[in-house]
């Protein structure tokens, strides 16, 4: 504890900052005051630190010298039609090297999570669960031939959506963590795809919240979720290939 370190004979050192920030207890502050009264060096240091803090707090914000919006606009613009193309792994390898050092660091549990959610969702599981839960009795045809299934409870639908959210968040986090190691063009392409899909998902969710029984909105949301999973799946496939060394 900072407040207990102040002693009459020692210089205050780190306790100067604690003193300045009023983090010393009453006893520690009294000891510091006693020391400062007798030590010109510590008084001088304290005055200097006060100047530093005052200057830091008075710094003004200023914008960039050049307009950065154009670059942002490019990256958030609607993406080119799916599927995006990851650069061939061979193209990312230095010439003359048979094996490239793994560029990603997905953990096995993360890969397992991705694989599981892809297995569930790529077959139209979300659409099936959502349409079944929200529209029991509403005849519909699921995409990808998954088939309509009434009787699926709301709990199951929420479970699938939660699984989707969790898996997507996991994959996004890992991609974020590895973005510095990825080919910048690949990152931009993935981000552009995800940004457009995320906007569509957010919009569909809001609309569905206002009209929960709307089968079109349920299907639309499920489609957007599947699109996102497909994008993430392709990134995960590339990662998996590197992870396992498959060619």
């Amino acid at each position, binding site marked *: 504890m900072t407040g207990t370190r102040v002693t009459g004979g020692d210089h205050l050192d*780190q306790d100067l*900052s604690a003193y300045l920030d009023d983090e010393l207890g009453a006893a520690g502050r009294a000891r510091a005051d006693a020391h400062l009264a007798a030590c010109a060096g510590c008084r001088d240091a304290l005055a200097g630190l006060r100047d530093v803090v005052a*200057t830091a707090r008075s710094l*003004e*914000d200023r914008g*960039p010298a*050049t307009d950065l919006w154009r670059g942002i606009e490019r990256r958030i613009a609607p993406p080119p039609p799916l599927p995006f193309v990851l650069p061939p792994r061979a193209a990312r390898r230095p010439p003359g090297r048979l094996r490239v050092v793994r560029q990603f660091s997905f953990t096995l549990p993360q890969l397992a999570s991705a694989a599981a959610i892809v297995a569930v969702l790529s077959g139209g599981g979300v659409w099936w669960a959502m349409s079944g839960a929200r529209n029991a009795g509403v005849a519909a045809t699921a995409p990808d031939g998954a088939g309509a299934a009434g009787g699926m409870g709301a709990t199951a639908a929420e479970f699938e959506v939660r699984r989707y959210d969790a898996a997507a968040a996991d994959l996004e986090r890992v991609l974020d963590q590895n973005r510095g190691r990825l080919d910048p063009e690949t990152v931009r392409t993935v*981000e552009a795809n995800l940004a*457009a899909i995320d906007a569509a998902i957010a*919009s569909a969710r809001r609309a569905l919240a206002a009209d929960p029984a709307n089968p079109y909105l349920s299907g639309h949301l499920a489609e957007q979720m599947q699109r996102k999973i497909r994008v993430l799946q392709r990134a995960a496939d590339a990662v998996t290939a590197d992870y396992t060394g498959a060619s």
Partner: protein
Amino acid sequence: MEHSRPGVTPTSVPESARSPGGDAGDVALAAAGDAAAFRRLYEAHVGRVHSLARRMVGCDHADEATQDAFVRAWRKLGSFRGESAFGTWLFRLAVNVMLTRRAQLATRRGREVVDDELLAQQPDRVRSRGLGLDFETAIVALPEGARQVFVLHDVEGYTHEEIATLLGVTSGTSKAQLHRARMLMRRVLAKG
């Protein structure tokens, strides 16, 4: 939590960049895919985000880091619940972007960006540009951990507990790094 900085003048926002509904209206529009609304949010907040970027990752990487922060914000708008001001949410997101970028840069370089000796040389290089810029340049030259804590605590008003959570360190480490940074910056001011 809102972090206000006494004495700090907010970045001016051109009248044309403001929307009648303010941030809240533009956030809703942007979340629905309205890029023009998001541009207004960008115009309103880019000064603060870019200043954070300059201080945390340096001028060379500030533009790209700022763009990263806004692109990330665009992607995450759907998760913004309005529980805090949009600016607060954006700033916290930007802090995380900057911390990630710092970690990537440090990994690439395999060392701390600069040492105390280099810091001591900084003021002489930019003295003619005014104390504010001298001070900002010196911030960038601080050792990695000290800079992060100094910017977050003394410039941005975060508490040691918040910094400890953000950086994954103890609050004691945060306090020690803050003191180290302040002592180094004191040398800068003494030279000025």
